[in-house]
């Protein structure tokens, strides 16, 4: 690829003395900096920052942004990530200075609007989850998992129970065992059965008095609703454990059923999947958690409390696990979630999930004849196809199809996850795509599968960057810019 202003680093574009702005000479008395700080506190040389004109910076980032593939430019059927279109209205509302310019150290009396919005959002998420109390502060879904598991650990500690195990199905997101491990639990894997649901015999064999929490994703990562959930919950509850729901797939069941009603005791939401939080980008994010009443005393501080129409932050929470995030989390994401939920209302949220499931099933029906879907003809909001047969017959792997889709203007689906499906391709269209988009995507996918293996194995062909050497990128990553010598 030719080097241009989007691929050259700002450091490489730097020219000594180049500036975006020049200030007039100082016309007030000055104090030498070394009379304010001790000599030991001063750096010996300036940090190596790039020196650039404004236009250098604007061209760099504008060109870079045109190389991005996003929901705003392309269909993005990235399974498990729910890359739905986020209404611009929510962006605009969250950017209002009355929200965006608040300072977290303002006295409570001066940001009553924000406090009330967050308080009401807690109630709405509580209603959607069918659970009693909500904490909005975790900064991402996985952080929500960790927070909820710390809450569970405190709950058991307070009641004098030394429970050490967390049970996790083998189709789970990798964050589940990571969070359980960080929260001090041992992870025990539960097998999936032939249908892709929890293997009840394996579950029964692994339940004992040491089980603290069973973490389940339902609908699961294969896109199936585990109808055994009530039975699973009663087995776990009989053994004295708690049921955790990874809420990654809430987009499939909004308003259709409530986790609290099918036996869940604690869960997290991913607003960037379900409630129009910004997708990806590394944050800032949010991962609210909802819990049953008996777990509420252990939720992080501060809690929002209301009395006589006044809202305040309550820090007097003796059993709380303490702070999990500075201030009150990433409120900008939470404002978007509030706007999304209020805009749709109860009926609207129900049609979100109805349409998400309808779209996924329609796409499944278009795809399954040329790309097998091992776990059946019906799904929830996403389905997992497998290129295993193609790999055996023609040496074409899921990765090759995914790379070729990029050539054709589609973001690749999630590949090689969940691990229980070989050569997995996890497709989630979301509710915001039209019938025409789904049909065009299926047509292109069919065409790609009929293309010569060699063409696919070397894809992408039309993009600025060809296929990276992933092994070298992992083994010899270049993480820091260094001046060329």
């Amino acid at each position: 690829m030719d080097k241009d202003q989007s691929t050259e680093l700002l450091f490489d574009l730097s020219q000594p003395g180049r500036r975006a702005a020049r200030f007039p000479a100082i016309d007030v008395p000055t104090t030498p900096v070394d009379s304010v700080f001790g000599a030991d506190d001063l750096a010996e040389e300036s940090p190596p920052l790039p020196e650039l004109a404004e236009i250098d910076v604007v061209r760099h980032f504008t060109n870079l942004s045109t190389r991005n593939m996003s929901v705003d430019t392309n269909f993005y059927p990235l399974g498990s990530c729910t890359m739905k279109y986020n209404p611009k209205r929510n962006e605009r509302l969250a950017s209002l200075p009355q929200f965006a310019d608040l300072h977290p150290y303002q006295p409570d009396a001066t940001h009553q609007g924000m406090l009330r919005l967050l308080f009401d959002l807690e109630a709405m998420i509580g209603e959607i989850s069918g659970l009693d109390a909500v904490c909005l502060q975790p900064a991402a879904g996985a952080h929500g998992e960790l927070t909820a598991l710390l809450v569970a650990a405190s709950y058991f500690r307070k009641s004098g129970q030394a429970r050490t195990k967390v049970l996790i199905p083998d189709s789970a997101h990798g964050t589940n065992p990571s969070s359980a491990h960080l929260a001090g639990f041992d992870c025990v894997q539960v097998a999936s059965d032939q249908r892709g649901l929890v293997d009840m015999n394996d579950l029964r064999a692994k339940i004992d008095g040491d089980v603290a929490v069973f973490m389940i994703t339902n609908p699961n990562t294969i896109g199936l609703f585990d109808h055994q959930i009530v039975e699973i919950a009663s087995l776990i509850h009989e053994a004295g454990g708690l049921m955790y729901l990874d809420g990654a797939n809430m987009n499939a069941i909004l308003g259709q059923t409530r986790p609290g009603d099918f036996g869940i005791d604690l869960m997290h939401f991913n607003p960037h999947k379900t409630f129009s939080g910004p997708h990806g980008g590394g944050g800032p994010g949010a991962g609210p958690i909802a819990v049953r009443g008996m777990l509420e005393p252990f939720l992080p501080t501060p809690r929002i409390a209301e009395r006589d129409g006044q809202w305040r932050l309550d820090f007097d929470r003796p059993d709380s696990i303490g702070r999990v995030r500075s201030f009150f989390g990433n409120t900008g994401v939470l404002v978007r979630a509030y706007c999304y939920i209020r805009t749709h209302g109860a009926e609207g949220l129900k049609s979100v999930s109805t349409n998400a499931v309808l779209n996924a099933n329609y796409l499944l029906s278009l795809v399954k004849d040329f790309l097998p879907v091992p776990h059946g003809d019906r799904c929830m909001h996403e389905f997992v196809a497998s290129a295993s047969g193609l790999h055996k017959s023609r040496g074409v792997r899921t990765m090759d199809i995914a790379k070729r889709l990029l050539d054709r203007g589609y973001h690749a689906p999630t590949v090689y996850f969940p691990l229980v499906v070989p050569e997995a391709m996890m497709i989630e269209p979301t509710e915001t795509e039209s019938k025409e988009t789904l049909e065009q995507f299926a047509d292109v996918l069919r065409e790609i599968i009929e293309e010569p293996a060699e063409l696919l194995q070397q894809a992408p062909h039309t993009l600025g960057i060809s296929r990276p050497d992933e092994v070298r990128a992992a083994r010899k990553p270049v993480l820091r810019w260094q001046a060329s010598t």
Partner: protein
Amino acid sequence: MDESKLLYAESHEWVSESEGQCTIGITRFAVEQLTDIVYVELPEVGKTLSKGDPFGVIESVKAVSDLYAPVAGEIIETNTAVVDDPSILTEDPYDKGWMIKIKIVEPVDASSLLDKAAYDAKIQGDAGH
């Protein structure tokens, strides 16, 4: 190694027994399923393993998996060449790509592992799944 004489674990390790020692690696099928392998972590020599214990970690561009001991014993040698260059596994998983050697206390119970025919039948099922 003669693949037809090896024994196999359900978790895709192979084992070859000779004079109180076992050599252990992973199968070509496992390597193909993992695709491009990025890192291999092997244990310290001297560590004692029970059958089924995780003895190392293998990471590909797709996934991270544990390696499980198909037999019990004490680790007497590890193949650091595989750690330095995991692409050896893609080229030659049964000879140059061996991973650990174990001193066993009792002979391998062949009935607890799969022979070549049984392993081949198993992976047919896995791949077509």
